[in-house]
């Protein structure tokens, strides 16, 4: 009250003022650093995305060349069976080549012919075969068809090949460029949206290579990994947090789980190779095995996140539940786990996102193979998105560059969908307490 000011801190106000200056300065520095970090990471993200989009967007259209094709039954279906299975294997190359020669009748030499044929993708006859097998009434008719162009033509039309480069340094000849220009001038070149990219599997020909096989492979692999790792990890985390006795064994297990989370992923691939393939004899390249390996890899990540989330549930909730006679299992499953669920889901999504981007362990179990068919079950041979990106990035054809970028975009879209799901689920299960 009216006591004399404390002699030790008589300059209280001045000292507080002095310390405030320092504290405010620190605060400003911290603000600046934080803002800088965010701007930097946003810039990195933006440049990554612009780069990938810039390289990849052209893969979403595909060059087609309109030709008048005569589907002569005498060539295609000499036996006249009209059997779709036989039609799929029939000779559609001849009508396509005939159509090309008819379009450019002045081409005579063999070498020139070969160049001419390369305008159209080697896959085009197969696509045509599938069309005709679907609708055999097309046989015998003469149609104007948009045929898939070869990859070099596609690249040229999209402007990715410079005409200034000397002829011997590019894969497309001056003669071919002349034909393409003639076709373009005649309005016979079109670049429609590339649906085939989203509906087809891999191919040796970049122009007909699609992402669906890898996307389905990724989805199947992740589904297996999620179904295996989520319940196991939650059970392990619940046991360790809520039931395990506090002894040396528990401690050893905890330390090892933390260590497992840091084990390089390729080691898990080796384990999968040794155990699942060589010992249990599971099929190679299968999403089942990929999922098993990724589940092992993801387990410790989810366990650690789930334990954190469970430990963060306030003890008062446990006491409340126990106090009215919940059994320990009821305490955990009626109260603790529901409250921890948002955190557990976040951990799961982080683990799954990491698994989605994983390549190395899958190489070990053969998921790096060239697989054309879209997998239908977890035991079909398959590849996954990052491996597909790796394979395409490794290919020499110029046209694979845009597909690599486009596949990266698909992978990013996958990630976005997963994160959006996580955010939605978090919102759904979040409770205030």
């Amino acid at each position, binding site marked *: 009250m009216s006591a004399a000011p404390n002699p030790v801190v008589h300059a209280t106000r001045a000292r507080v003022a002095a310390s405030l200056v320092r504290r405010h300065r620190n605060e400003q520095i911290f603000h600046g650093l934080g803002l800088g970090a965010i701007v930097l990471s946003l810039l990195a993200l933006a440049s990554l995305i612009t780069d990938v989009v810039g390289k990849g967007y052209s893969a979403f259209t595909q060059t087609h060349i309109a030709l008048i094709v005569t589907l002569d039954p005498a060539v295609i279906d000499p036996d006249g069976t009209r059997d779709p299975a036989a039609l799929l294997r029939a000779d559609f190359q001849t009508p396509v080549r005939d159509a090309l020669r008819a379009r450019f009748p002045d081409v005579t030499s063999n070498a020139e012919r070969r160049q001419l044929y390369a305008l159209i993708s080697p896959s085009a006859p197969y696509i045509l075969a599938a069309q005709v097998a679907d609708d055999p009434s097309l046989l015998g008719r003469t149609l104007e068809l948009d045929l898939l162009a070869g990859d070099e033509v596609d690249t040229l039309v999209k402007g990715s090949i410079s005409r200034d480069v000397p002829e011997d340094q590019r894969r497309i000849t001056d003669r071919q460029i002349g034909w393409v220009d003639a076709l373009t001038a005649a309005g016979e070149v079109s670049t429609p949206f590339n649906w085939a990219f989203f509906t087809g599997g891999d191919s040796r020909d970049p122009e007909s290579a699609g992402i669906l096989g890898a996307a389905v492979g990724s989805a199947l692999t992740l589904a297996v990994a999620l179904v295996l790792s989520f319940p196991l990890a939650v059970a392990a985390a619940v046991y360790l947090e809520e039931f395990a006795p506090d002894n040396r064994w528990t401690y050893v297990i905890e330390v090892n789980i933390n260590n497992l989370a840091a084990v390089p992923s390729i080691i898990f691939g080796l384990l999968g190779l040794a155990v699942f393939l060589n010992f249990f004899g599971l099929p190679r390249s299968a999403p089942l095995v990929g999922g098993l390996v990724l589940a092992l890899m993801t387990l410790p990540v989810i366990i650690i996140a789930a334990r954190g989330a469970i430990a963060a549930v306030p003890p*008062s909730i446990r006491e409340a539940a*126990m106090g*009215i*006679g*919940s*059994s320990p299992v009821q305490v955990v499953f009626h109260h603790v786990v529901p409250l921890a669920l948002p955190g557990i889901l976040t951990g799961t999504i982080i683990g799954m996102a990491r698994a989605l981007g994983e390549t190395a362990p899958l190489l070990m179990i053969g998921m790096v193979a060239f697989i054309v068919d879209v997998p239908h079950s977890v035991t079909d041979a398959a590849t996954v998105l990052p491996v597909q990106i790796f394979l395409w990035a490794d290919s020499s054809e110029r046209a694979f560059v845009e597909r690599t970028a486009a596949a990266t975009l698909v992978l990013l879209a996958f990630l976005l969908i997963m994160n959006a799901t996580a955010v939605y689920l978090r919102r759904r299960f979040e409770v*205030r307490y």
Partner: protein
Amino acid sequence: MRNMTVIDRSRSGQTADVPGGSEPSVAPAASSKEHKFQARKVAVYYGTKRALNHIDLDIGKGEVTALIGPSGCGKSTFIRCLNRMNDPIANCRVEGQILLDGMDVNAREVDPVELRARVGMVFQKPNPFPKSIWENVAYGPRIHGLSSTKVELDEIVTLSLQRAALWDEVKDRLQESGTSLSGGQQQRLCIARALAVDPEVILMDEPCSALDPIATAKIEELIDELSGNYTIVIVTHSMQQAARVSDMTAFFHLGDLVETGPTDNIFTTPRDERTEGYITGRFG
């Protein structure tokens, strides 16, 4: 009493063998010598540190017993022994005997889950579940199988909320979260939650420490109403509250039970000078 009948009917179907179950015929027993709890030589250790020394305390059936004493003297520790809430604390060890209607609560064959259904607890800090008000109250009866239909459950919820003097304030918002209530309302919700499983004993650890005088008065009124039908043990730091609501008072000090007796005696003629010092406010 109509309230009791409904809950009791469902209960007797469940645990007919509970000794001394809460038959509605049991008369208010304020002066009865019957003991609900008998603590004998109870000692509690946290690790090597002893928190309670050889406590001998009888708690009368249908009575309100107040536990008072300075902070850290072991009141909470003792009250938590009565329904074995100390069990989950890793380094906590309880010695001695605690009899509930003559049955040792720490005996091997006693299921703590059943014990806690008979001995309910209200905590110092209101801790409603982050669920709806209805769900908060209905949860206990449901896990104990006290009602077979939603209608019955609704009835239990309504009655429990009415008895906890909360019904009028929440009857239009039963689906709102229990955590959206005010502190005092939350505490009454916790009391309703404890009442809903129709326990024989209600332990209250400083139930009014977070409440304003009006909410406190409501809870004291409630304790008054419940006494007789229920055995109540309440920890409190308020001498006035102990004097107002309790029949018996036990004074703890540094882990010892210093003095126990009828509340009037303790407050008018304490035998021990530590008791006198505490209730007159000279220390603690």
